[in-house]
C-alpha cells in the first residue's frame, strides 16, 4: 500500500512510478497525499490498481486512464479523465470544465457539479454528474452516456452524434441538432444500469429524467441532397 506525498515527491517521479506498474502488479492500492491542485496527477496509468488522492487536483487528472480506479477526495480542475480509455474516476467534489473530454471508455462519476463542456466530444465514456453541468456539454458527443441529476447549461448536446444524454433537472437550452426524445423501456434499463454503477440504485427515480439525443439532421447523409455531391 504505497503512499506518495506530493509535498516530498515530484509529480514527474510519481507518474513515472505509476507508469512502471505491470498488469500483474501486487501494489494495487496507492494513496497520494498533498495533491494541492497540481496538474497532471496520475495521467496515463495503465494498470488495474486503485489510486486514492487525498485532496484537490489541477488539470487533466487521470487523463488517458486505462484500467485504474482513481478516487479524488476533493475537486478536480480542467479536463479530469480527458481521453479516458477504461477504468473509473470518481470525483468527490466538483469538476472544472471539459470533464471527461474525448473519453473513449470507462466511468467518470462526479458527486458535485461539473462546469462548461462536460463530456465534450465524448466517444464511449459514461459520465454521471450528481449536480449540475455547465454550457456546451456533450458538444459533438459521438458515443457513450451522460447522466445529470441537476440542471444543464446553455447549448446542451450541440452538434451531437450518437451519445445518449439523460438530464433530471431543467435544461437552459439545447444546442444545434439536439432534441428531446421519448424515454422508452430500453432507455430506462440503460439509465438504471448507469445509476447502479454510480452507487445510486433505487435512490433516484428514473422516471424523473428526460432523454436528449441527436436529431440526425446535421451529420447524416440525406438522400435529398444527393445532387449536391
Amino acid at each position: 500500500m504505497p503512499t506518495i506525498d506530493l509535498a516530498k515527491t515530484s509529480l514527474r517521479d510519481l507518474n513515472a512510478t505509476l507508469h512502471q506498474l505491470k498488469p500483474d502488479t501486487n501494489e494495487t492500492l496507492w494513496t497520494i497525499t498533498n495533491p494541492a491542485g497540481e496538474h497532471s496527477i496520475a495521467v496515463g496509468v495503465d494498470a488495474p490498481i486503485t489510486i486514492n488522492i487525498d485532496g484537490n487536483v489541477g488539470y487533466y487528472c487521470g487523463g488517458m486512464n486505462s484500467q485504474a480506479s482513481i478516487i479524488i477526495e476533493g475537486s478536480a480542475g480542467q479536463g479530469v479523465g480527458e481521453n479516458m480509455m477504461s477504468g473509473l474516476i470518481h470525483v468527490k467534489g466538483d469538476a472544472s470544465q471539459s470533464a471527461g473530454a474525448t473519453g473513449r471508455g470507462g466511468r467518470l462519476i462526479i458527486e458535485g457539479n461539473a462546469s462548461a463542456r462536460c463530456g465534450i466530444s465524448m466517444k464511449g465514456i459514461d459520465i454521471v454528474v450528481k449536480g449540475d453541468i455547465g454550457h456546451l456539454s456533450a458538444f459533438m458527443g459521438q458515443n457513450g452516456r451522460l447522466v445529470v441529476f441537476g440542471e444543464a447549461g446553455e447549448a446542451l448536446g450541440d452538434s451531437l452524434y450518437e451519445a445518449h444524454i439523460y438530464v433530471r433537472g431543467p435544461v437552459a437550452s439545447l444546442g444545434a441538432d439536439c432534441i428531446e426524445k421519448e424515454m422508452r423501456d430500453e432507455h430506462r434499463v440503460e439509465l438504471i444500469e448507469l445509476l447502479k454503477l454510480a452507487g445510486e440504485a433505487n435512490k433516484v427515480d428514473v422516471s424523473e429524467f428526460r432523454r436528449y439525443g441527436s436529431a440526425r439532421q446535421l451529420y447524416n447523409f440525406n438522400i435529398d441532397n444527393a445532387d449536391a455531391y
Partner: protein
Amino acid sequence: MCGIAGLFIKDKALEPQLGALLAKMTSTLCSRGPDSAGFAIYGAGEKGKSKLTLSGPSESYDIMAAARKLTAAIAPDAPITQRYSHAVVTLDADDVARAEAWLAANLPDVSIMSEGERLEIYKEVGYPDDVAKEFAIAEMSGTHGISHTRMATESAVTTNGAHPFSTGRDQCLVHNGSLSNHASLRRELRRDGIKIKTENDTEVAAGYLTRQMNNGQTLGEALKASLDDLDGFFTFVVGTETGFGVLRDPIACKPAVMAETDQYVAFASEYKSLTCLPGIKSARVWEPKPATVYFWEHN
C-alpha cells in the same frame, strides 16, 4: 495564458496579510505568465488626498528624483515613498490634474501607474516571483488586491504593457484573454476623452469601464454592458475603491475559480493558487458562470 489572482478581505484581522497572501497566490501562477507581473493594492488612504504611483522608462531610472521635481513644482511638502522602481506621491486631490499636466509637459518619460485615494499599482517586466520580491508586496496591507502574471499576445512586453491597468481614479482591471475590437474601441474612447496610453487590448477594456462609469453606470452595469461591446475572450477581475468584481465572456474558455469564507472572497486562474489561503479546505469553492457579473463591496 496569463494568470490572475485576487483577494477581497472581509475580516479586518486579515488585512495586514493582504500582500503576503496575494504574493503567495501569484507565485503559483508564474508559469502561466512568466514575462511580467503587476499588483494592485488597495491600502490606507486619506479623504481629500490622492496617491499618484509613478514609474520611469526603465528600472534603473531615478524615480525618486523625478518625484521630487514633481512635488517641488506642485506641492513642496507632499510625501513621497519609494517601492523599488516606483514612487508614490500623495497630493491634495485638487492638485492631481495640475500634477498630471506638469508631468506630461516636463517629464513625459514618467508614467502614472495609478491615481486614487487608496489604490497603488506596482508592475514590472520579469518573473512574477522576482517582481513581487522587488516591490516587497508581501509586506503590504490592505482591504483588497489584484495581481496578474502576463504571457503577452497582443502587444509588447513592457512595464506599461503589464497589468493591472488603471484608467480612472481608484479603478483597475486585469485580463486573461484577448480582445478583437480594441483598435476601433480605442479610437472611440479617446474621442470621448478617456486617456489610453498603450496599444494594449486590456487597457481598452479598462478605459471602456471607466467611460461607462463616468457616464453614471455602476461597475456592475458597466461590466454587463461590456458583454455587448467587447468582442473577444476575457476573464476580467476589476477593483474599485470599495469593490471587487469578476466577469467572464459568454464562452468562458479562460479559467476562473473562486472561493469564499467568512474572512475573504478570492479569485484565481487555478485552484492551486487558492491552497495557501486560511480555511480553504472548508471554503465554498466554485467557478464563476459565463456572462455573469459577480461583485462584492465593502460598506
